[in-house]
């Protein structure tokens, strides 16, 4: 805990706000479902799109379900699915990028072409085909969203890696006789961490957006559960009345994604602490 506090103190104000938001949503994602006043699919309100009341702190949704409870569950999907897919995308993209940059030549060419192929297939249509072919599951959603953002991460990571590879210390490592794996992981990768983190933050936002886009196309988390984007989507008819059922999830998405990026943006390279 002390670590968190001293870490928080080292951040600028925007970073502290970001950290606060991220921790808040992380907490909601972790323990929210335990604290939710109602089961996620329970039809508890006679009316729909109720405003904020004592029994329904965030109102009720289009079927008369408790928005607070649904939000607490939904945060879990968005946070973990979004972060998981972003991590997976960055992991794959960066690994391939490092391979391309360190090996160069035809390996680079083949990987770059493969990424071009992937990037030029519209992601939502790709998702549509995959879900139609394999059925909808969390694993598949994770895979689709991750695959969709691999090429973007690859492009950025490759550009960074090619820059780093041209630096002297990589040549030094080559002259020392180091294998490609060591060069990629120990010499090159650590020098790309910060821009990669920033990219991760942005990918996270895009994935949250893609997930909500998929919910629009009827793909996405299985009911009665819903991620934050699906919560917005399923309550669209409450938009005219400004029902909390749609406003609250929308705010949740904004605070979560902006918070994550504020935090990441404020993580300047280590020299600050020196």
């Amino acid at each position: 805990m002390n670590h968190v506090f001293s870490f928080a103190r080292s951040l600028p104000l925007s970073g502290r706000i970001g950290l606060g938001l991220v921790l808040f949503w992380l907490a909601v994602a972790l323990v929210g479902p335990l604290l939710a006043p109602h089961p996620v699919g329970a039809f508890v309100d006679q009316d729909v799109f109720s405003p904020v009341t004592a029994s329904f702190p965030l109102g009720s949704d289009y079927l008369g379900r408790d928005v607070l409870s649904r939000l607490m569950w939904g945060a879990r999907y968005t946070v973990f699915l979004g972060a998981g897919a972003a991590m997976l995308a960055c992991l794959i993209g960066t690994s391939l990028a490092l391979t391309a940059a360190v090996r160069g030549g035809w390996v680079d060419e083949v990987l770059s072409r493969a990424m071009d192929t992937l990037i030029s297939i519209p992601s939502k249509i790709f998702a549509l085909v995959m879900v139609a072919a394999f059925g909808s599951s969390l694993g598949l959603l994770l895979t689709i969203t991750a695959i969709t953002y691999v090429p973007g991460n690859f492009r950025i990571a490759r550009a960074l890696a090619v820059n780093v590879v041209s630096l002297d210390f990589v040549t030094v490592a080559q002259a020392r006789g180091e294998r490609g794996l060591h060069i990629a992981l120990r010499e090159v990768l650590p020098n790309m961490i910060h821009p990669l983190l920033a990219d991760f933050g942005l990918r996270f936002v895009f994935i949250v957006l893609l997930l909500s886009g998929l919910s629009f196309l009827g793909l996405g988390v299985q009911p009665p559960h819903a991620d934050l984007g699906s919560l917005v989507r399923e309550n669209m008819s409450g938009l005219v009345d400004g029902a909390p059922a749609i406003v609250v999830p929308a705010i949740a998405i904004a605070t979560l994604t902006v918070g994550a990026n504020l935090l990441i943006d404020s993580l300047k390279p280590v020299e600050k602490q020196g």
Partner: protein
Amino acid sequence: MSAHVSVRNLRIVAGSKAIVDGVSFEIARGKVLALIGESGSGKTTIALALMGHSRFGATISGEVLLGETRVDQLDEAGLQALRGRRVAYVAQSAASAFNPSRTIMSQVTEPLLVHRLASKADAEVRAVDLFRALALPFPESIGARYPHQLSGGQLQRLMAAMALITRPELVILDEPTTALDVTTQVEVLKAFKAAIASVGATAIYVSHDLAVVAQMADQILVLNQGRTKEQGAAEQILHAPTDDYTRTLMAAASPTERSAPAVVAGDALLKVEGVHAAYGRLPVLHDISLQLARGATLGVIGESGSGKSTLARVIAGLLPRSAGSVRLGGEELPKGIDGRSREQFRRVQLVFQNADTALNPVHTVGQTLARPLAFYHGLKGAEAKAEVARLLDMIRLPADLATRNVRQLSGGQKQRVNLARALAARPDVLLCDEVTSALDTVVGAAILELIDELRRELGIATVFISHDISTVRAFCDQVLVLYGGTAVEQADAAAFARGVHHPYTDLLMHSVPEMRAGWLEQAVTRKAVLPSEVGDDLCRFLPRCPVAIDGRCNAEAAPLRAGDGFALLCHHELQTLRELTA
């Protein structure tokens, strides 16, 4: 008569740290003041303050007077009107100070245009005049080029043209020749001096090189850590310094000859024979051979582009040779990195010129040094830790530096760590590529001493690559002079000192500034005698050679002429050369 430029009690603060503190000076109209000091002394910061500019949000206080104008009190508009019109700036690296995407002409004439001092056509006429005055080639058409198409020396002169085009009252030259080869430096210095004089401007010359300053300055101000150490007329500072720090600077500037060049007899440890190498289709090394015994030092000199760094890369295997052989202890080394054994890697270690980029900025000193220990010797844990401590001790750095990140080190410390990393492998051959060129003189001298000491203690054979002929002369057992990828001269230290040299070596030696006023005026820049291009087999130096023989040099390859402990490639007889280069 009041001074043209007057600075009183200048104090520049960045964050909570004063970079410049209590500096005062005056310059009379048309005179040149030199600001001298090592990196971090605040000399550039002071120079920029005269234009009301500070980097990294530092705040300027004190009084800066240019004629009647209080520069320190000008607002943004006032500064804009001042800069480029009354005060002009020549930056250290013209290569990065020119905008890579715009033509030279548009950038040189820009000060005139933004200050509405001339029409575009007039501005271009004035620019061409200046190009001519600065002895630039193709003055009519050079303006249409882009920065990357020009050499460093040309860019530096163009930068001067850009500064002088508005005929400013004050020119600030910030280490304008540091990045240049010595031979180019002479021409550039001459051009600057003449051009500034013709405009009649007052100048501030920022430098760390005392010999250069001696040529340019009327007055000198010596700085250390943002404070004035000594200030006075150039003559007095250079020849009768009163401050200890000034004396240290002077001492470091003239390297002492090494006590006894310990020529170690025995079989050659490193043997390079008939090596050729090329980047793609562009040949860079042509038939290079050399031999190096255990504990011996070979100095490789040449200008930028001579192929001297390439030679190190070819030996290390980073650039596979296209022909020839490299043997280590009788064993032929594979051409490139692929196929070399870990032991072969260990025995040849390369130390890069720029420690800033040669050290991985994310690693600590300890991690940097531990890697070769683990990699070559399998040392881990406490053992490795002890060895790191020993290495740090060897390079005269405190052991607690091991936990420090390399980014937090000073330039000299970085270069020592850079060296220690190579030593950690316990190599047989150490390839040092311009290891001191990015360092201040004092720090560089210390590094040299260290290398020399280690070489003697550990018996490591060293290839010492440098553009600085005086360092090489003082430091090495053998000298190899490269020009255009060809070895034009090769000699042992004694023979090299005796003095028969290839015309190119001769040019290099005479281009090194001496620390006396008036050297620049005497230094003769001799023109090439034959207008010609390089043929494949002809002497590479021919296009610049002041003593080339028509009908021979431009007709056939130069013959190898060997003497006592030396050999060179030239059409002239050794005797003739002795006379020509005397």
